[in-house]
């Protein structure tokens, strides 16, 4: 059974405005897929639809099978067992993803306690291990509130939280867009290593072709809610077939060329 199977997914608003149209893709255990798109392309709405997290006023149609469970139209109690255990999400902005009133240690402990049933000293050890895995100093970070640490540290904490439940699929939605470029490089390396080490599947969502090319081989390019092109990142970059992709690649190449030759 495919880990994630999306068939003819559509998302529209209550008023009928389409946001995603007829999107299909499969992601098997351990595979990676990049979703590329600019603002309004529907890439983030797709990630929310996959995990059944669409907000009020948004309606999904079609089929999303996550570990064999139909997510579209599913009741909340059917979705809760999937979140964390099957799929976890790392969002763009760690400052809003984290609870500002809770110390980092407790936020990291929560999914570990819930999904792995650990308590007391075993839980503390697991939290220390989870923080060490994302290269955070347990003694200092555990007791800190989100506003007391840097943006990069916050995103590391958010990754530790997402991985605490040992998901088989990690959805990373623009995970480095809010970060400085040197920090971005570190976080990408960290994600790459962790996904590899755990054999997780990765759905990596970004507007940045260069960032996606560092993370996944297969990509889907979205524009105005439609998958306009799919293939390997190398092929998409070297021989884009859709006019939108061609324009996107040309713009990205133009900016890349500004940086000079390597």
């Amino acid at each position: 059974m495919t880990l994630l199977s999306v068939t003819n997914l559509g998302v529209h608003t209550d008023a009928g405005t389409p946001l995603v149209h007829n999107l299909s893709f499969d992601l098997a255990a351990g595979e990676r897929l990049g979703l590329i798109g600019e603002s309004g392309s529907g890439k983030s709405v797709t990630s929310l639809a996959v995990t059944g997290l669409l907000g009020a006023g948004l309606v999904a149609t079609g089929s999303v099978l996550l570990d064999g469970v139909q997510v579209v139209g599913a009741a909340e109690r059917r979705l809760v067992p999937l979140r964390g255990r099957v799929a976890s999400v790392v969002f763009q902005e760690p400052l809003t993803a984290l609870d500002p009133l809770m110390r980092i240690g407790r936020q990291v402990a929560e999914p570990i306690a819930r999904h792995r049933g650990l308590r007391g000293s075993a839980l503390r050890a697991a939290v220390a291990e989870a923080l060490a895995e994302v290269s955070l100093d347990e003694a200092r970070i555990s007791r800190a509130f989100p506003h007391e640490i840097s943006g990069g540290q916050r995103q590391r904490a958010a990754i530790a939280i997402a991985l605490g439940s040992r998901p088989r699929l990690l959805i990373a939605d623009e995970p480095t867009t809010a970060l400085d470029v040197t920090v971005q490089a570190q976080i990408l390396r960290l994600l790459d290593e962790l996904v590899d080490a755990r054999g997780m599947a990765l759905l990596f969502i970004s507007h940045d072709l260069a960032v996606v090319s560092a993370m996944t081989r297969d990509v889907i390019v979205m524009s105005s809610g439609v998958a306009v092109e799919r293939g390997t990142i190398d092929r998409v970059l070297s021989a884009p077939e859709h006019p939108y992709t061609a324009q996107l690649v040309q713009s990205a190449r133009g900016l890349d060329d500004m940086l000079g030759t390597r």
Partner: protein
Amino acid sequence: MILELRNVSYRYRKGALALDDVSIGVGEGQSVGLVGESGSGKSTIVRLMLALARPTTGTVLFDGEPIVPARLGRFRASVQTVFQDPYSSLDPRQNIESIVAEPLRSLGLARGAEARALVTASLAAVGLPADALRRFPHEFSGGQRQRIAIARATVCHPRLLLADEPVSALDVTTRIQVIDLLAELRASTGLAILMVSHDLSAIAALCDETVVLHNGRVVEAGPTASILTAPREDYTRALVAAVPRLPLA
């Protein structure tokens, strides 16, 4: 030099040093890029250069002299600015004509038909149709809004444009169009530009000179091409190396 920071330090009231002995300047027709990560002091420099804050030590010079209140009008007419977020920098309740005419109004430079002619010309120069005049910000996309902000900043024909992350909030396809627009304005009017950005490719596209800022200090400054290809300082090297690149074609 049109605008210059000379040995400027800036300390917050609580004691943290945001800028430490920074000297940078922009001359007539020059284009200077200021690159740095969060906390490097970029925004503080912008506030000092716009005379929105005063340095703790050192001086800010406009045409070689301090910006005293009597010179503020001339300073504002010569140095205009474009901000990062085109969604918060345009008043949603004003129409485009009123927004773009703002500098003419507040500096007392033009009124009535004369102002309208300048506004129309400024909108045309950024590639927006004349029928934009009567419309409101929410009717425009992010890239178009940034064009409106550029029209507002250039309507009084300033000598220096201070652009604070002008393309960071834009999609890549739009980003390149706005960079091209700024380059065109530079070429056609001789406008000097100081662009602050964390995005090296935007700076490379537009600026002849680059200043690298880190922890409130200038770590390296020079021609953009040599900063990119032959950085001298470790920090600059790390910064350039961290920029994600496309696979080679």
